[in-house]
């Protein structure tokens, strides 16, 4: 059996106010697409942030393995360098730093190699076209004054430009209109199908999943994984909601 790309063993996470995740275990293989669903406040974002190494969330138990290495203690930039990516639910605004300058810097730091400017420019242009982003956004300050949809497109742009092995998408579809969801989905499809990238899609709706081939679905309730199933679990949740898992608690 091959080593999974991501292996989470008995992970517990806390903030000052108390424990948020309890004993969560999960494995994601290369190129697999997993969906994490759950009601509001179940710990979905906490899980994504903990995997990425957000210092606000303290690991109180368990280990996280990525690509065969224990990354539990690594800082976020080291995790990114190993090929982990988190698309933020609320991407931060950085005034004075243009989207393009930021991407160049990120690629340079992640690879540790000088950037091939011409190739980068071409790729950026093509990717922005795919995401139906006006090329003027490349010169604009990162996320500053972007609409909700443009912010999410910018996240997927980063995903495609940075080429991670595993991307965690935290509520990437929330607050988007139908057209924006379609465009963003196309970007994710490109990553999933053409590049074979693995995905952990955190969502509480299902619009974004329509275009993706889902391998596994996990249900999280009150910080615990209560059920893992295949793609059909998504439809079941769609029909019946989380009711039965809540009452089981």
């Amino acid at each position, binding site marked *: 059996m091959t080593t999974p790309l991501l292996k989470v063993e008995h992970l517990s996470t806390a903030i000052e106010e108390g424990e948020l995740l309890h004993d969560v275990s999960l494995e994601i293989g290369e190129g697999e697409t997993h969906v994490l669903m759950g009601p509001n406040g179940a710990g979905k974002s906490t899980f994504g942030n903990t995997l990425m190494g957000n210092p606000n969330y303290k690991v109180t138990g368990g280990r996280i393995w990525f690509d065969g290495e224990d990354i539990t203690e690594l800082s976020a930039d080291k995790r*990114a360098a190993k090929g982990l990516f988190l698309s933020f639910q609320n991407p931060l605004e950085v005034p004075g730093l243009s989207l393009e300058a930021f991407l160049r810097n990120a690629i340079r730091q992640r690879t540790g190699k000088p950037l091939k400017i011409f190739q980068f420019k071409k790729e950026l242009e093509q990717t922005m076209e795919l995401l139906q982003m006006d090329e003027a956004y490349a010169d604009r300050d990162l996320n500053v004054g972007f609409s909700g949809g443009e912010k999410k497109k910018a996240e997927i742009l980063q995903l495609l430009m940075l080429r991670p092995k595993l991307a965690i998408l935290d509520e990437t579809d929330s607050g988007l209109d139908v057209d924006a969801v379609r465009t963003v989905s196309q970007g994710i499809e490109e990553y999933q199908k053409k590049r074979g990238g693995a995905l952990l899609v955190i969502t509480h709706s299902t619009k974004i999943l329509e275009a993706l081939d889902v391998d596994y679905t996990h249900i999280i309730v009150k910080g615990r994984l209560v059920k893992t199933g295949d793609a059909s679990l998504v439809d079941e949740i769609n029909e019946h909601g989380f009711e039965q898992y809540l009452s089981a608690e």
Partner: protein
Amino acid sequence: MGIQEVAEVDRSLYDFKDDEKDFYRLQEGLTPDIVKQISEEKHDPQWMRDFRLQSLEIYNNTPVPDWGPSIDGLDMDHISSYVRANTNMKGSWEEVPEEIRNTFEKLGIPQAERESLAGVGAQYDSELVYHNVRAEVADQGVVYTDMESALTGEYADMVEEHFMKLVPPTDHKFAALHGAVWSGGSFVYVPKGVKVEIPLQSYFRLNAKGAGQFEHTLIIVDEGADLHFIEGCSAPKYNVANLHAGCVELYVRKNARLRYSTIENWSKNMYNLNTKRALVDENATMEWVSGSFGSHVSYLYPTTILRGDNSHCEFTGITFAGGGQNLDTGAKMIQLGKNTSSYINSKSISKDGGISTYRSSIEIRPTAKGAKSSVDCASLMLDDISRSDTIPAMDIRTGDADVGHEAKIGRISDEAVFYLMSRGISESEARAMIVSGFADTVSKELPLEYAAEMNNLIKLEMEGM
């Protein structure tokens, strides 16, 4: 202020009393004999010699300012007001003594001159050691010379007419000191309608330990003319106090435009008590770009008098206060003409216990119908031990002024740092990127090589956080 007040001040120069006691007290450091000696060294015309002595008198009778950062560490008895290197001014770098030339080479001045400047003046301690202006610019009738030559040259009358009329010695104690012991600096005259396409630059280097630098810059941009002037300053660090009390007087005539850019990076033992003022006529534009990184204590508030109708001023400034620095900076606008407009965009950063204070004053006088003013200041504190204060004053004497003010004080958000780190950027780099981004509205206004220098300064300051 404006015309009437300038005239009043002028008269008051002659309305003073001798105070023997004060003279005596100052005998150790600054005496009439020392001032006379400087005057002699510099072959001043008689009026200047008188002016210096009167200024000294005013200096002795004016109290030290008591409203800003402490300048107790500044002991005038131990500041040498005049230090001259053993050379006179040269017109080519080859003739400048090697050691001094090397200093300016290290600062990149000769290279910048070759690549992107129309003329350069380089001051070392109290005197200019180099001055040159491109032939094509000189052919346009542009005068760019050291102040000493200007005093006796073709434009002597013009200099006498304008010298310390905008900043009279009665303005404050260090203006008086400047009047008494000033040395070096530049005189620029741009004739009517002449547009100088590439910038002129003066660079001030204070090398002597425990010395003062008191250069005087006088620029007159005549009607319809256009100029960008750049000023750079630096000094090596000593463990005794140094003093910079320069004076900049700018006259922007009808329909003219002047941009005055400064990157100040004095060493951290420097007391920077500099005075800058511009008088702007009808339909003319004054632009200040100011970067303050160095010095132990700074008092710096470039002032613009919008005298003419439809005149306009923009001030863009950034101040970076690190450990042991107390930088009190800002701008002052005095709007007299109709439909005058002023815009201030100020940024300040403080770290390692540094104190950064933004202080500004907007005065809209009764004559300034239809005036506009907008102030935007933002401060960034990089840790819990640093300080940032904002002291904006506004005095509006018209009923129809359009005035806006926005102030923000903040810290680097941990979430933003995590966001950048999640893309593979190291923590220190992420912080530097956020700080550089914060400073971006200012660096965008700087000539390219200065913007690069500023970003390097920020990066340097951010390392080891």
